[in-house]
């Protein structure tokens, strides 16, 4: 059992927790993920590590309440326990040789983008962060990004806060203005990562994307997290859990990944409603 030592609501749909897991805290690096189960017979869900406190032996997770499992997790209070928490899984984000980086985060993906931005900041790289949200109410972590970014641009889809528009708008402006990034790292919804990659393409800037497919074990056993890369005219199958979650954006077949992500749409809706009703009765 793993203790929830701290819980904080970042906005109405996004919650942050610190989970006591000393072995994971000792090892986890930005870009890696964990898998948790809330209770016995619960689903195993992957969440990217949003930070660690090595000294306290705790791991920070930030999640959006979107399905039955995240709903159940959100219903847990500080001091309560979840049944399983395993990691760190996946390969950490590569930082070698990158002096100037642009981090593009979208929605709850910003929670994962933050430790990556912090890591580059600590390594002395020049960090530009672009973070986008649907609206003002969903904004998270602006202050944290401010601290570790040399330049921060906040965008909202509806213009209810900061600049109006998609994250690709300021990215294109900067690239047009001749900004030379060694790497663009984008973390967020698949559709956003796809368009960030397309925006960067004409400028020849390398793009790393963080994939978050459906997975079960997370250790290279089930193969559910497979995705296809287009490399040198060949289609290659990779497993996000052991080969990723970071991939070269230019190689990823985003349309296929988006389609696979919707595999259990009906089931999830049903499970979510069932869970909501459960809480209503309680």
């Amino acid at each position, binding site marked *: 059992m793993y203790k929830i030592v701290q819980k904080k609501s970042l906005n109405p749909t996004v919650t942050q927790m610190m989970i006591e897991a000393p072995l994971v805290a000792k090892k986890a690096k930005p870009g890696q993920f964990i898998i948790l189960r809330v209770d016995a017979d619960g689903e195993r869900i992957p969440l990217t590590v949003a930070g660690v406190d090595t000294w306290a032996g705790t791991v920070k997770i930030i999640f959006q309440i979107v399905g039955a499992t995240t709903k159940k997790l959100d219903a847990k209070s500080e001091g309560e326990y979840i049944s399983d928490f395993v990691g760190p*899984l996946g390969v950490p984000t590569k930082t070698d040789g990158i002096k100037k980086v642009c981090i593009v985060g979208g929605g709850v993906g910003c929670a994962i983008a933050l430790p990556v931005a912090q890591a580059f900041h600590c390594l002395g790289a020049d960090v530009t962060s672009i973070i986008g949200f649907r609206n003002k109410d969903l904004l998270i972590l602006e202050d944290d990004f401010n601290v570790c970014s040399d330049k921060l641009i906040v965008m909202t889809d509806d213009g209810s806060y900061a600049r109006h528009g998609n994250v690709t708008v300021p990215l294109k402006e900067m690239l047009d203005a001749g900004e030379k990034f060694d790497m663009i790292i984008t973390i967020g919804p698949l559709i956003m990562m796809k368009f960030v990659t397309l925006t960067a393409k004409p400028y020849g800037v390398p793009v790393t994307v963080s994939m978050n497919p459906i997975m079960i074990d997370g*250790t290279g056993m089930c193969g559910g997290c497979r*995705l296809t890369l287009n490399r040198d005219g060949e289609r290659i199958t990779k497993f996000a859990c052991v080969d990723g979650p970071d991939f070269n954006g230019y190689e990823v077949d985003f349309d296929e990944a988006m389609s696979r992500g919707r595999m259990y749409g009906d*089931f999830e809706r049903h499970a979510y409603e069932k869970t909501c009703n459960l809480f209503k009765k309680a």
Partner: protein
Amino acid sequence: MAIQIKKHEMPTQAPEVRAHNFNEVALGYSLEIAVEEAKRCLNCPKKPCVEGCPVNIDIPGFISKIKEGDFEGAYNVITGSSSLPAVCGRVCPQETQCESKCTMGIKFEPVGIGRLERFVADYHNENVKDAPQKPAANGHKVAIVGSGPSGLTCAGDLAKKGYKVTVFEALHTAGGVLVYGIPEFRLPKSIVAKEVDTLKQLGVDIECNVVIGKTLTIDELFDMGYEAVFIGSGAGLPNFMNIPGESFKGVYSANEYLTRSNLMKAYNDSDTPVMKGGRVAVVGGGNVAMDAARTAVRLGADKVYIVYRRSIDELPARAEEVEHAMAEGIEFHLLCNPTEILGYKNENDPRDPKNGFVTGMRCVKMQLGEPDASGRRRPIEIKGSDFTLDVDTVVMAIGTSPNPLIKNTTKGLEVNRRGGIVVNEDGLTSREQVYAGGDAVTGAATVISAMGAGKLAAQSIDKALNA
């Protein structure tokens, strides 16, 4: 009394009943049948059956005890050599091991050794509640990676000798392939849990949710004071055919399909989904393919096919599993190989929710040519024999490749061309005091061969540490 020339039949659930439930298919011998079957053993002096057993159980020894009605005595004989009798009695391929050597089998049917082993283990589990005696500690610490059949065997053998053993398991439940792979109807999870409990009573610690190679490395285990490490981490990454369409929704690896149903209990209305119903094709002809196909039947599929590129004589699955599958209405497309998986695409509406789901599988018929390197006749495509199988779910059960996590984080650990860990005749790897066995070494094989490897490693570790 005349010799009973046939094995006593195993009582089973009727096919039309069991196809709708996940309860165990084989029900086990009654006490009376077990004693009668035991009497068929000639107690011949050469004991060829013992040689046929990868863990060398004293088979005539335990069968003699059954004849005498001393079932607990029989249990003690078996557990002298095997840590998981209730498991082996159910999933070992006895027909190619002990029973294939049985003297009775020369003229008649061999003694039902597997069925008797299962009877003894079940009798013990039902009637004996005393915890096993915890052996005196010998002061040595050993770490085991993986709680599948090889790891549990190695752990059990060492614990019985007084070693302090810790088993590290990546998943949330101990048992490895015994819980995520082999379905409930063939090996009830309560049986595995019971065997794991017995090991815990012997003093074995089981740490779930620890991925060796990630959470801790092999080198860190030595830093923590473990004097030897056994790697039994299993097979790993599932193979696909590399044909078009394998990413359509509804295409599973057997590992994923079975894990969703078994470990995550998708059959039991848990939070983990799996595609149920419809028409299912399972590609492959091994025991895993049979498990996946029979699981599909029980999940409510309208029609289930096995698609295998060789003929019925080459099917690698146990004969018993194939018979069960056929009795449950699974249709075999033999000498048949998939060439493409077809998916739905609405050209006019990219948002159509049906887009990307499997609609069928293109296959080509095969014929057998000359024997290949494996000694089996090589299947060759028959030109122009393509046809489409109308299915919504495809399960690929065509083997696995070794998992890279431990190899990538352990300096000096030698692996072969296919990624399997290289070991010598003692089960020792290229690293001092690091042993390995099971699928991590051999690639996908049987539960009992993994147990044999775990047993060998336990003997080698004992020799090395207690010298």
